[in-house]
Structure formats: C-alpha cells, structure tokens
C-alpha cells in the first residue's frame, strides 16, 4: 500500500473526525439530533477559503495565514449556530431534526447563489494548507478539549439534559443554555472541519455539503457509539476507510454500507463504544461491568434452577 494514498484517506478521516467529535457532543452527550451539520461545515469552508485564498485569484480572498482561517471559519459557524439555536432549540424530537435539515439545506442553497464565492461553479484555488500534521494536531486538540468538557460540570449538565430533560430542569439546570452551548461548540467543530476540508480539497462547491454529508456524520457518531469520544474517533476512522477498502467491490460497496448500518443498530445499538472510553480506567470499568453482568446472570440462573427443584 502506498503512503500518499493511505495518508490521503487518513487525512480525510481526520477531517471527518473533527466534525464527528462536535456532533458527538450534541447528539451523544446532549441528546439533540441534527441533520444540518454539513451546513456548518459549508460556512467554515467558505469563510476559511475567503480568509486564506490569495487576493489575486478568482474568487479573491484576503490572503491571510491559515491559522486565522481556522479561527474565522470556526467562529463564523458558531455565530450562525447561535441564531439557529435561538429559533429552533425549543422544538422537540423530530421537529428539531427537520428544522436543522431546513437550515442545512438553506445554507447550501444560499451558497449556490452567491457569485462572489463562485456560486454552484465552486471555488477553485483554495491553498492546500491542510497538511497531515496540521490535521493530526487539530484532532488531538479537539479530543482533549472535548474530553475535559464532558468531565466538567458543564458536561455533566449536558448529560443530565440528555437523560431526563424535565428532571434536569427541576434540578436547576438551565436546559436551554446547555443545549445552546452544546450546539455552538458542535458547530464550531464542524466549521473548523470545513476549513480543513476546503484546504484539503483545494476546491469547494456547495453541493459537497448536502444532506447526504450531514447524514453521513450522524451515522458515524451512532456507529462509534453515543456518549463516547473514543467511539467517535474509531467511527470516523473505520467509516471513512470502509468505502475505500470496499472500492474493489464498486457497485456493491454502498449496499454493504447500508446493511452494516442496519446491522449495527439492530445488533449492537450502543455502537462500537457506546458510553465507554478507551482509557485505562475506562477499560477497567468495561471489564468490571462485564464480569458483574456474568456473575449476576450465573446467580439468576442458579436461583431459577434451585426454584425448579423445590
């Protein structure tokens, strides 16, 4: 296997990972389901491209350093998510879902019509600044920040919102505020992923950020396991690489993909790592829980048998 090819796949997985980690906070830890995160990626990608593209190219950019593009893309996506959150965070279940779908599609349709940014014809000539190292660093930062956040008081409040919204409210947690915080952070993550994506592809078009992209991200989160950071990391790696590995099967690979999604939901609904973490203490906990479960089962079985004998 050739390194540039593998590196390319890993970079793509790394970019997806940033967006997936953000979505994992929203869906896995706060219990909100979004169909619009491709829209936040689009905002990040376009704002990032605008900041870093050369002023002499068409469409023209500002020609500023890549770091500013990352910051700008993330902030822009976060800011837009704030307005979207104000409007839609009070909606329940499917209705929140459909609202985010609406916003995501709306963002894409707007970019289709903005000629300043190339419209549907796209924006070629974005500098190829997304190096392997830069993506790796971004992934590490993203994981560390998220890991600390979910362990903090804020993170625990978010989980409380996920588990039982009403009870959380009674316990004095400002539910709306925590939903908003979670949405904004996840949008910033998606925006940053968008910036890296634009500078990896060197060419962006609105149709790259369609509903399909949003669904793909959500599927990765679920696949990795709700409420698990290491699950999201693994999910992004496996699911980005999977279609590539299956490339030899051409036509059938998406059939397998669809079947795999159903199979996981049906047979292992917590995803690869639901609620578990791949840290030393996490693994110990996992083993302990499994042993406890086995003992309990054995005890129940013994009692049942004992009952029959009497």
């Amino acid at each position, binding site marked *: 296997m050739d390194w540039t090819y593998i590196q390319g796949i890993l970079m793509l997985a790394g970019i997806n990972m940033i967006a997936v980690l953000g979505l994992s906070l929203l869906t896995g830890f706060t219990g909100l389901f979004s169909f619009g995160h491709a829209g936040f990626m689009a905002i990040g990608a376009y704002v990032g491209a605008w900041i870093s593209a050369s002023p002499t190219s068409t469409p023209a950019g500002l020609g500023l350093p890549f770091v500013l593009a990352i910051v700008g893309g993330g902030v822009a996506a976060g800011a837009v998510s704030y307005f979207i959150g104000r409007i839609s965070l009070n909606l329940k279940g499917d209705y929140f879902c459909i609202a985010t779908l609406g916003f995501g599609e709306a963002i894409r349709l707007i970019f289709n019509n903005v000629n300043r940014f190339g419209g549907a014809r796209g924006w070629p000539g974005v500098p190829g600044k997304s190096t392997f190292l830069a993506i790796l660093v971004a992934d590490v930062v993203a994981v560390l920040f998220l890991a600390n956040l979910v362990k903090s008081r804020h993170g625990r409040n978010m989980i409380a919102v996920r588990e039982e919204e009403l009870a959380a409210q009674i316990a004095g947690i400002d539910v709306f505020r925590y939903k908003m915080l979670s949405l904004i952070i996840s949008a910033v993550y998606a925006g940053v992923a968008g910036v890296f994506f634009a500078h990896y592809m060197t060419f962006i078009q609105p149709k790259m950020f369609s509903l399909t992209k949003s669904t793909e991200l959500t599927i990765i989160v679920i696949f990795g396991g709700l409420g698990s950071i290491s699950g999201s990391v693994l999910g992004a790696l496996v699911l980005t690489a999977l279609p590539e590995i299956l490339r030899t099967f051409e036509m059938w690979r998406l059939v397998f993909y669809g079947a795999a*999604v159903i199979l996981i939901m*049906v047979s292992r609904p917590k995803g690869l790592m639901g609620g578990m973490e791949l840290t030393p203490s996490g693994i110990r906990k996992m083993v302990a829980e499994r042993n406890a479960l086995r003992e309990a089962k054995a005890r129940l079985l013994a009692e049942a048998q004992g009952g029959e004998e009497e």
Partner: protein
Amino acid sequence: MVQFLQQLINGLSIGSVYALMAVGYSLVYSIMNFSNFAHGGVIMLGAYFGFFGLTLLKLPFALAFLLASIGTFFVAILVERIAYKPLRERRAPFLYFIISAMGASILLENLVIATIGPTFRTYPEVFSKAPIELGPLAIGRLDLIIFVISAVSLTLLILFIDKTKLGKAIQAASYNVKACALMGVNTDRVILTVFGLGGFLAGIAGVFFGMKYTVYPQIGNITTKSFIAAVFGGLGSLPGAVLGSIILGIIETFVAGYLSSQFRDLIAFVILIAVLVVRPTGIMGKVTEDKA
C-alpha cells in the same frame, strides 16, 4: 389571470404527488413516533415494480399497478421486521430508528443501482399524455387520474381506520401504544398493518411518480419534500399530510412563478421553519410528549 390559474393547477399537481408520499410517512409516524426515512426507498421500488410489470411481464395497467402495491406492501413489512422490530423490542430511542431507516434507504437505493442499474427508465405510455386544454389552460390527463385514484385510496384508508376493528386498534395505538398493549391489543399486528398500508401507498405513489416523470434509483431523494410537507401539516395526521402537501406544492409554485425560482426551495425552507416556530406541531399535528 391565466397565468395565475395555470400556476395554481401546477401547484396542485405537484402537491398531489407530495401528498401521496407524505401520507405514508404520517401513517407510520402516528404509531411509531419516528420519521420512516426508508419510505422513499420503498416508493422507488414501487416505481420499478410497476415499470417491470408493464414492460417485462407485459401486464395490463391495473394488474401492474396492483403488483407494485402488493410488492411494496411486503417490502415495507420486511423493512419493519429487519430494521425496526429488534429496536422496538428493546425500546430503543427514536434516534436509532431514524439511523436504521437511513441505513435501509441507502441499502435499497444502492441495491437497485447494483442489480438493475443506475440509468433512468421511461414508463410506456398507458394513458394519453396529451393535456386537456381549457382555453389557454393545460391540465394533465395523468394529473386528473392521479387525483381521482389518490382520493379514492385515501378515502378507503380513512374508512378502514374509522370502521374496522383493526383500524380502531391503530387509532388507539396512535394515542398510546403501551396502554393499548395492556388492553390486550396485539400491537405487533397493528404495527405490521400500519407498515403494510404505508407500503401499499408507497407502491401507488411510486407507480404514479414513474408515470408522471421517470424511474431512477434516486427517487427517494424527492421524498425529503414530502417529509417536509408532512411536518408542515403536522406529523401523524393524515388529513394534515394531505393539506400540508397541497399547501407546500402551491407555495413552491407561486414562489417560483412570481418571486424567484433561484430561491424557491430557500423560501420553502424559511416558511417551514417559521411554521415550526409559531406552531411547532404543524397545522393539524397531534400533540405528543417528547420521546427522545
């Protein structure tokens, strides 16, 4: 004035296609409280069943039509058994249902691409496609037929739900599945019936879609619009789904005709969000507690 009337006709025609698809969504939602995204894939299969019934088996239209509906009836039940039943038994959160539904929709679309092929196909001409001309206005013959058959099948559906015992059970289950089970209703059968009915409607929708436009593996994508229409009318309400679809069709047409076709979908989404904010359960939606 002529243009206004023509656009109204266009809007009704588009809306009626959405309606056929949206009713299936809403029916399943009313019981299961989740959006069955696999519905689009089932509609697509219906279009293919009808197409092959007419071309390969050379069936008369009525039989091909029946074949498609019965075919999708079983496909929908199969999807329920494989993708949802295990989740149902475990009482998984609605998120899992949606993801499983998406897996099913990806699977169905790509299964068709891999086996039948990615190219689109044209239905043989069953009815004359020439429009009926009322002075300067043109009304599609097929549109009228779609309208009549849709109206008949929806009436039958509503009668079924209102008059039969199984229908009553469906109604009861849509209020509260758990309580229903406690009262001795076989909820598994109720749910299967609902999926079967949804599948049957999907077959009808698929055949009409194929006849009116064309048959291709990505038909399911269009159903995003009918999903929006269902939300618009209020998820879980059948009359709401129909009303929401007609309104969405007309709004889209008038935006494209009088404001800007570039921003047609954008405005549709803005109105959708506005409706959700002002009246989150849609026009006629039932009020449910959040199950998420």
